[in-house]
């Protein structure tokens, strides 16, 4: 009952406001420049794969 009463108090405007604030905080975080460690990592994974493919097929 208490829980339901709490729910009833939430109207769409409040829900939107909560989401908007949350979205803003997350977008700000998500838009931060990607650290080199991640771009390096992806480049390494890619390089490792092309080495595997291009070089001898030792595991084939």
């Amino acid at each position: 009952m208490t829980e339901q009463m709490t729910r009833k108090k939430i109207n769409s405007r409040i829900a939107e406001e909560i989401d908007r604030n949350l979205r803003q905080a997350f977008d700000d975080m998500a838009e931060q420049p990607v650290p080199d460690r991640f771009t390096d990592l992806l480049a390494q994974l890619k390089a490792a794969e092309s080495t595997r493919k291009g070089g001898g097929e030792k595991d084939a």
Partner: protein
Amino acid sequence: MPDPREELTEHIGSLRAFALSLTRNSATADDLVQETLVKAWTNIEKFESGTNMRAWLFTILRNTFYSLRRKRKREVEDADGTMGESLATKPDHDGRLNLRDFKVAFDQLPDTQREALVLVGAQGLAYDEAAEVCGVAVGTIKSRVGRARARLAELMHLSENETLEITDAVTVGVVGARPAA
């Protein structure tokens, strides 16, 4: 057909934000993102093309987080409130919410509710996508999001003097699930 792995870079920002909301520690969060990227790269054949890659990555990240947490529970829970720092550095331009209060309230939510609200409210996943990420039913996600919003509103005293009958879609979903007597 383009290699879906080319798309991974685009999601790093979202992954970091999601990781931070789970770990609440920036170093742990980035380790989690790193592990997620390696897993995604090496398991890319499990990704169904045409589906939401971000949701797929979130699933990997979340599973990795919970298995790591089981392994070293205490370490991961030693949060430094980075989410809060990030929130606190931003002025709340047009928003009425005081971001510091919001952060404090947000941190008080149970993990399951916070996660559901982050996925749906902040990251914009559809309910069914969020349900899949968390491995629960769609109704469970709807109910968690509804309770999370209600709790935040309560903690921030947003509901004072509000006697509106209008409910948001989530509340309608939850309340509407009752037998129609």
